[in-house]
């Protein structure tokens, strides 16, 4: 197994101290094996698991120059698939870390022991100019279903440095019992937290009189992935340790954020600088007679015209050197340079808005693709994004012109409805950024089709993406050319229709705008869409239903369901029937309003034409796991509605076809 997939060690502080390195545990100090462990064939709390950790231990000692971390793992193999955990990989960063004292053994189901005496390989994971990532790999012998495998080793850290550390509780295997200790470096302050909580029954990490922080836990569930789940960081049990040079770490939440807010406010104010340059810039952008909203729109649009380095293809070191891009010390530099990073462009907009007389504030926000921000965690790194709050006509509007193609007064989904710190000279106050409702982000599909005697559909389909629907596509395709974008849009149409479709894009969508919807016009043919049933023909109504086909198909759910943003899908389909054909019967209209989501279907047929409208509205954001059944039922209703058919009576000439 991959013992640790990620290098978690961040060099924090260079320290001066001298100590001898002594392993926390030396030799083959194996814990006794119980008869129950040998006999075990399954774990009732992890039914079907291929293997489980019977025991895990991590003992870290930060003593100055001989920091070491002892790791011990005992794994019970429960299925043939579980034998893969006998392949062990221990990655590490060369020069700063070494691996020592690797011992391993297999305990057969009958209790006999095979000590590992094979080769430990050293594998290059990646070697770059600055760093060499290696891994020790080995595999245990004679591993069968029912065997117990165990191994232990030490991470030994470079002298003179202290590293941040963490205890990972949630692993891909269920853990029956775990023990963790940390003896922190005495000359530094350390703070620890468990941002995703602790598993039931776990002992809270506590510093004991001997200055060692300890915790134990048991029955830690295996971590698994699900569609539409919250960020892993929100769900994985772990304990983070952070060292600080300060003699005493600020433990009061209010004071912590006040200090952070003041520091950042000063930084932003410094970056915005004197307003003279901005006032001159504003005078070039707006006319004095412009109403306030128009002024703000013009300033926003002009800010987005600044070359945004954050959304250009990655450039190599050589290219960057040759570009000789000037570093902006303030927004005036950004303005005069004509380019800047996304965050700088956002502050440029702030500077311009303030210079134009708007009440505008810098806001530091926590994007929610990695964390759901909680101030109580006192982790300022989670506030990783900047936006601007402008008060206009009594409304609070949020802007992020630093995100390419972001529409006016609309934040990209990662920054929408997140906790954020509105900065002021006193440190600031907490706000929650705006989340646009479903009407702001729409996919509108208008089909004007003709049905042939053979049941095929031919005609024009227009698809319009607005708000965040347009933004996400423009961002995804920003580095592509017209041919790739055409292919993307044609593939997108194919994904909507649950049958073979021949579609060709006929329009040239505007991929650069942040103010206009993205509109795609296609000429299409859907062969054999209507089917025959003896003397009748049946016309399915779910022309654009494929996207919802597999949504929440499983009955069981572990984690909450997170939607990126509210959206609305609006379909308007008109089908002209062949001459002489008539509508026999149409399905019932539907309106299922579940408050946060709604499905509407209406149809009518007259004068040889069938027309139906479908609306799927989702104002869903975070749905708790215990409400999953309700959510699943709603989408089942959607699918059921989409499966309806219109009964047609063919004309006399085509009935036989």
């Amino acid at each position, binding site marked *: 197994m991959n013992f640790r997939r990620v290098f978690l060690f961040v060099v924090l502080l260079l320290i001066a101290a001298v100590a001898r390195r002594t392993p926390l545990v030396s030799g083959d100090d194996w814990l006794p094996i119980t008869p129950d462990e040998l006999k075990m064939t399954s774990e009732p709390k992890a039914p079907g698991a291929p293997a489980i950790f019977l025991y895990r231990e991590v003992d870290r000692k930060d003593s100055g120059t001989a920091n070491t971390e002892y790791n011990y793992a005992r794994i019970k193999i429960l299925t043939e698939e579980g034998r893969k955990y006998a392949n062990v990989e221990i990655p590490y960063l060369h020069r700063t870390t070494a691996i020592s004292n690797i011992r391993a053994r297999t305990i057969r189901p009958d209790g006999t022991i095979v000590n590992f005496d094979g080769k430990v390989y050293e594998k290059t994971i990646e070697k770059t100019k600055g760093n060499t990532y290696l891994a020790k790999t080995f595999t245990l012998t004679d591993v069968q279903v029912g065997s117990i495998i165990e191994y232990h080793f030490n991470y030994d850290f470079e002298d003179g440095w202290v590293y941040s550390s963490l205890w990972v509780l949630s692993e891909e295997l269920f853990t029956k019992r775990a023990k963790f200790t940390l003896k922190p470096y005495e000359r530094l302050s350390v703070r620890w937290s468990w941002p995703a909580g602790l598993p039931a029954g776990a002992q809270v990490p506590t510093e004991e009189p001997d200055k060692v922080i300890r915790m134990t836990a048991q029955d830690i569930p295996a971590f698994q992935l699900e569609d539409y789940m919250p960020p892993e960081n929100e769900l994985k049990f772990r304990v983070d340790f952070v060292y600080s040079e300060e003699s005493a770490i600020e433990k009061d939440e209010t004071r912590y954020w006040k200090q952070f807010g003041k520091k950042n406010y000063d930084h932003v104010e410094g970056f915005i600088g004197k307003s003279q340059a901005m006032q001159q810039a504003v005078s070039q952008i707006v006319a004095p007679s412009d109403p306030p909203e128009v002024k703000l729109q013009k300033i926003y649009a002009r800010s987005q015209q600044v070359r945004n380095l954050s959304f250009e293809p990655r450039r190599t070191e050589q290219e960057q050197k040759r570009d000789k891009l000037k570093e902006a010390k303030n927004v005036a530099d950004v303005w005069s340079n004509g380019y800047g990073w996304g965050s700088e462009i956002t502050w440029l907009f702030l500077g311009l808005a303030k210079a134009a007389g708007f009440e505008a504030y810098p806001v530091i926000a926590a994007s929610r693709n990695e964390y759901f921000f909680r101030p109580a965690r006192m982790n300022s790194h989670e506030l990783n994004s900047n936006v601007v709050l402008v008060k206009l006509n009594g409304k609070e509007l949020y802007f992020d012109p630093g995100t390419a193609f972001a529409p006016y007064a609309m934040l990209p989904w990662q920054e929408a409805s997140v906790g954020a710190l509105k900065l002021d000279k006193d440190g600031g106050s907490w706000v929650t950024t705006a989340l646009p409702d479903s009407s702001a982000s729409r996919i509108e599909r208008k089909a004007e089709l003709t049905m042939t005697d053979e049941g095929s559909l031919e005609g024009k389909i227009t698809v319009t993406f607005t708000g965040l629907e347009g933004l996400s596509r423009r961002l995804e395709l920003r580095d592509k050319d017209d041919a790739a974008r055409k292919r993307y849009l044609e593939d997108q149409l194919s994904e909507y229709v649950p049958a*073979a479709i021949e579609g060709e894009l006929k329009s040239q969508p505007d991929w650069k705008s942040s103010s206009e919807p993205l509109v795609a016009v296609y000429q299409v043919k859907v062969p054999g869409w209507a089917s025959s049933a003896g003397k009748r023909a049946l016309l399915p109504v779910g022309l654009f239903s494929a996207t919802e086909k597999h949504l929440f198909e499983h009955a069981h759910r572990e984690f909450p369901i997170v939607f990126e943003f509210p959206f609305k899908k609006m379909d308007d389909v008109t089908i002209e029937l062949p001459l002489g054909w008539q509508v026999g019967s149409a399905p019932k209209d539907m309106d299922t309003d579940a408050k946060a989501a709604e499905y509407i279907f209406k149809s009518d047929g007259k004068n040889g034409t069938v027309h139906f409208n479908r609306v799927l509205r989702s104002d869903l954001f975070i749905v708790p796991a215990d409400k999953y059944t309700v959510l699943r039922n709603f989408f089942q*209703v959607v699918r059921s509605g989409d499966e309806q058919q*219109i009964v047609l009576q063919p004309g006399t000439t085509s009935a036989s076809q």
Partner: protein
Amino acid sequence: MNNKSCFSREPHPPASSRRARTHRSAALAALFVVASLLSSPAAKAGDAPSWMHALVNVPLPIHDEKTDAVLLYSEEILNVQSNGRIKETERAAYKILRPDGRRFGKLQFAFTPDSKINSLHAWCIPAQGKDYEVKEKDTAERGYADVEGGELYTDLRAKVVDIPAAEPGNIVGFEIDRDARPYILQNEWFLQQTVPVAEARYTLQLPPGWEYKAVWLNHAEIQPTPSGSNQWVWEAKNLPAIKWEPDMPPWKGVAGLMIVSLVPPGGVKRGFLTWSDMGNWYNELTQGRREASPDIKQKVAALTSSVSTPLGKMRALADFLQRDIRYVAISLGIGGVQPHPATEVFSHRFGDCKDKATLLSSMLKEVGIDSYYVIINVERGEVTPETPPHIGGFNHAILAIRLPDGVSDSSLVAVVQHPKLGRLLFFDPTDDLTPFGQLHGALQANYGMLVTPDGGELMALPQLATSASGITRAAKLTLDEHGTLRGEVHEIRVGDSAWYQREILRSVDKDSDRIKPIEGLMANSLGVFQVTGATVTNLKQTSLPFEYKWSFVAPAYGKTAGNLLLVRPRVLGTKSRDLLERKEPRQYPIENESPSRDTDTIEITIPAGYEVDDLPPAVNADYSFASYHSKTEVNGNTLKYTRTYEVKELSVPVSKADELKKLYRIIASDERNTAVLKPATH
């Protein structure tokens, strides 16, 4: 199929990724066939060399607007030393035409302790501005291996180059020199790439007295031009791109390729001219590796003493290899192709494909049964009857077991009659989901080298009958007047169909998730459903059919339209595919995994008070490569839908692609068909 590439010195692509495979193959030309005779001087420090600048204004090869880049020039130079070492140079330059062509600025060059990189340079000539240069010290290095997949360690690594300004309109190129000490004196020259090629050159310099033999695949033979003493040059121009298509044959089945065998003087056969040469080489390599230790003998006795028949003994040993010997690959030097001794594999209880074949062969010998290595490729089509003997074509090892006289059983279907050795049963001990006697689809009708004491021969493996793989699904269901459908489904899977289901379920690590494949299947066809119970039978007993039984309720399955009730009699299961629904005409054959035969029988009791008013038409579509028959009929108050879908041929030629597309559309239409129920008139 097991994607473990356990017989190879090449990096292998991500599992099941044909795209990766083709890219890998294109890149491999850059990785393995390289060296340096000519080191082109650069105009001045930092500038691209003159050979690259000479390409700035050359006409581009024929290409369409979807072409990401073109290969303007590639050159490979092999300078063979009299001691068998090879100095290799490769240089190539691409013009990037589209943003997706940026990937040609990110290159990987593999190396091993036996094939060292002496120098590596890369450049970019921008459309405007000064050239860029990347030196070897600016490259990164990466290792291969997939520990969780069982690939524990390999000494194969790669230099990774990130060329600056790899943007549309610019030219990127590289030059690499290396020293190779090959085990086998053979070389491959891939003419074609995933993009069009303007010009490709290959130069071979041999020491005095040496000879070569060239074999061409997927391309007309090109005659070399002598260009000096024992030196030849091959040239090709304006070669079309090999564009990826779903279910296309493997790269070596379609791309132009020259395989060169080098023959030193004095009859030293390190470059194979015949399959016998190659078989003898492998015999030498495996000499003594199948010797049984006392422990092995003891284990064989323990496993077979209670079994009286030879077939029973073979099964017991095969089962031991499949279940008790874990797949772990450690590939160092010649260990990429040479198995570990059976004694080591047995004591460690792990090994890769050739290790497993070695131990099983050793154990079979102990019960008096002969067996032979079969070196093969897990992608059918990489090796064909036209392929010359060369080690680069293979990546897997299995066994051919000589069936003793009198051993006969209907389960032994992967059998071929060999003119000298009699009946040979092909068996893959690495594939723990295909039972003894059968053969996974990817190996069927494939070609492998049979290694016998007399040498080797290329041999066709059998193609199994369509009945050997497939799904038999039967459902008894009831529809009520509100349209709710409920009932039970019984599904029996054999052959590859069983293999896939077991493979899916083996990675399930929670009992509650075992139902997910059923939910996925149901969701393909039903909008609203609840699985109310499910059982799996024979999940581990691979010699028996895999079975699913489940019950479900599907509210609103029958749709009301006026006073009518509309019912789709197929209910579940999808056979249609959209892989041919593309604008571009198909270029390559469509490859099927295995022959198969699926049957559905769906019986729906219709609600009281209703009768059938309209039925969908029967469908009968017969083609040489596949057939599809469906019928809906009424028996009393039961609507009965039956269908059979049979895949008969493993490869559908391009000339029949339109027929296949038509068949898929016919199936799709049938799968949408609906029966109409109306209130009974009596």
